[in-house]
């Protein structure tokens, strides 16, 4: 009964009932910060869901034709229009950064400071690249006359939803990138090994923070998967 080993707890539905019925914690083995991040991501999922639902409603009820996304978002390479090329590259970059982040979490828990730090830095650079490409895409479209209030390709709401949704996602990525650079520095400095107290919260640093940041970063990638499917491909 005093065994704190997760492996000895029953799994499945019975395990869930037992976890929920027990004292102290309902989610065994889940640190406070990690659980907090999951709840925050659940809330943020609702935010992006509401944005995408509004987009769906707006696009489905338009009597003016919606622009052809393959054409609007194509890049001209050597005179040949390649549909969605920039988006494909952005997806590649973001998924790669997700991969490096997952590995960083693994090495963090294995207390491999160097690998963890370099992978967090790689993730940060990937994120920064993504933001750069998004900025490039915005400038290209603005140059072609797409505005939040109107655009030359079709229904007014296209520009509105595009800038709002990608803007919100971009802000989330940017915040993630800032935290990634900060955490890369902390990891290189060895703060997670020594348990140095944070500047704002005065709490001890621990490698679980990398996992928490990783959850946020994977969420940002998840949202991109949905935006990619619903906005660019659909």
């Amino acid at each position, binding site marked *: 009964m005093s065994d704190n080993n997760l492996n000895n707890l029953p799994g499945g539905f019975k395990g869930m009932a037992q976890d929920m019925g027990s004292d102290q914690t309902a989610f065994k083995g889940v640190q406070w910060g990690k659980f*907090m991040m999951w709840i925050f991501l659940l809330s943020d999922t609702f935010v992006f869901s509401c944005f995408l639902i509004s987009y769906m409603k*707006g696009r489905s009820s338009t009597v003016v034709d919606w622009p052809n996304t393959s054409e609007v978002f194509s890049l001209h390479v050597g005179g040949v229009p390649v549909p969605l090329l920039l988006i494909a590259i952005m997806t590649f970059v973001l998924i790669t950064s997700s991969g490096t982040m997952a590995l960083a979490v693994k090495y963090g828990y294995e207390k491999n400071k160097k690998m963890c730090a370099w992978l967090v830095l790689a993730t940060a650079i990937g994120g920064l690249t993504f933001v750069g490409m998004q900025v490039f895409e915005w400038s290209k479209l603005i140059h072609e006359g797409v505005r939040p209030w109107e655009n030359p390709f079709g229904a007014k709401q296209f520009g509105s939803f595009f800038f709002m949704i990608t803007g919100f996602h971009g802000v989330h990525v940017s915040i993630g990138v800032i935290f990634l650079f900060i955490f890369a520095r902390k990891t290189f400095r060895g703060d997670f090994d020594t348990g140095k107290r944070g500047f704002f919260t005065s709490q001890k640093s621990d490698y679980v923070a990398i996992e928490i940041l990783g959850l946020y970063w994977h969420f940002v990638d998840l949202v991109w998967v949905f935006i990619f499917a619903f906005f660019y491909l659909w």
Partner: protein
Amino acid sequence: MSDEYNQNNTPLETQSSETMSGSSGSTTDIDYVRPAELPEQDLYHSHSWITKWVFCQDAKVIGVQYFLTAVFTGIVGLVLSWLMRLQLGFPELVPFITAEHYYQFVTMHGMIMVVYFLTALFLGGFGNYLIPLMVGARDMVFPYVNMVSFWMFFVAVCVLMASFFVPGGPTGAGWTLYPPQAILPGSPGAGMGIILMLTSLSLFVIGFTMGGLNYLVTILQARTRGMTLMRMPLTIWGIFTATALAMLAFPALLVSCIMMTLDKVLETSFFMPAIIQAGEVLDYGGGSPVLFQHLFWFFGHPEVYIVALPAFGIVSDLISVHARKNIFGYRMMVWAIVGIGGLSFFVWAHHMYVSGMNPWFGFFFATTTLIIAVPTALKVYNWIVTLFRANIRMNTVMLFCLGFIVTFVNGGITGIFLGNVAVDIPLSDTYFVIAHFHMVMGIAPLMVIMGAVYHWFPLVAGRMLSEKLGKWHFWITFLGAYSIYFPMHYLGFIGVPRRYFEMYDSPYMASAIGMNEFITVAALIVGAAQFIFIYNIITSLRVGKPAGKNPWKANSLEWLTSEVPPVHGNFGEKLPVVHRWPYDFNVPGSKEDFITQTTPPSEVIDAEVEKT
């Protein structure tokens, strides 16, 4: 991730502090409680005046800060209601109240009362103070984020109040802020007013997301030894479910605020259809006003349960303590709270029956609305059965609980009228609706708040409030509030519309004039009576009877702190160990009429306690 709960490899307690025989893990030890899974919380200690009283990270101080700020906004809302009632009862009396101003009062009164007063008070005020105490934690799990969440709320309130002073004044679009009117010149405050309102709401949402994370993680992951979910007081269940709703409903509000801000500032057309304004064709087009309504009410309906559920939870505890009886059907009360919370996401468009939405939706939403009435009614039955043959102490707290039950039943029944599509059509946008939501969201939760203050003031301040003043306060408030809102049902039946500046010269509305005068006088009297309450609080802080420990002889952990009022760290050296639920009142065979949660079974061996 790890397979040991303890992430930091520090030694854990391995023995229950109440072990009689000194052996741990023995199955014959009736006082056995599982050892701690986690090490003690790394508590932050303030070292300067600013970090102790201003940017304080202690949840109790933050709770009081929320309470005071929320009460301040509530007083502003109350004054606005007096101005509205003056206009309705005695139309030409105050020339300052023009039609424009009236709509601004209506809007700000509504938004302040629902969001900045009630939500902030229940979740931020009561939540912050009571959650760590009642679950046996030393503080919230993220004290820094908790502190930031209060100051976000404070900034949100400042931005909201600033809208009174900008050119054009605050928005007059109704608390529901429906587009396209809300951002067009026909509405008061369509300039800076609406922008500040939307900004304030967005800040509020961000702040309460931070706070909500604290409340949820503390309740789910930081309870003390022996505190299972089904041993938590119903107060915590109510606040917990309300917080979960807040985390999932506020996103819809945030999204609708952002989109409306963009419609105003960047002239996008999310909600704006093609419009001709005073002969001029505007640049908008293609947007959908009903989309805003769906987003708003997807937030708005859970929001009213965010206000109601903590009230349900708190009143259960107040009734139980002051009737010296366990709450009847605790388990079903918990499931009813959770069920109401879950169902609240599927009923939103009962606010939209006359909006011109898809006509088939009425079937779906009327059905779900009637379903959600079932767990709500179940709770009312259980409160009444709890009181049946109980040892009721007819003090101020109990009076407010009884007042809650009466007004909530009244408001709940009128909700059934409004939940049916056909019956709603003539009643929609009339005073019947105003009567309904004031009874069920205004008066009833307010009764609970007042009762809760009389109940927990002895803990927070260490002194009792005056019973005599309390009873005066109760009777004037209760009878007065009934006098205000009961006649409004009749006004609604004869068709008097809501959000109207004046009654005009219509023949059937002439009969409403006398009624309106009566309601206004009642409202002003009830408003004045609140000064009794404020006077009571302020004087009792100095000359109130010292409360001592656990003056009400309650069972829950907040009354079992090392000092009264509780200090930083809450419980002194050792955290409490819980052996039972908080409702062991008048247990047959027990010496006292109450058994606290920390009393081990070995001390009450003769009592026929329930296995909880």
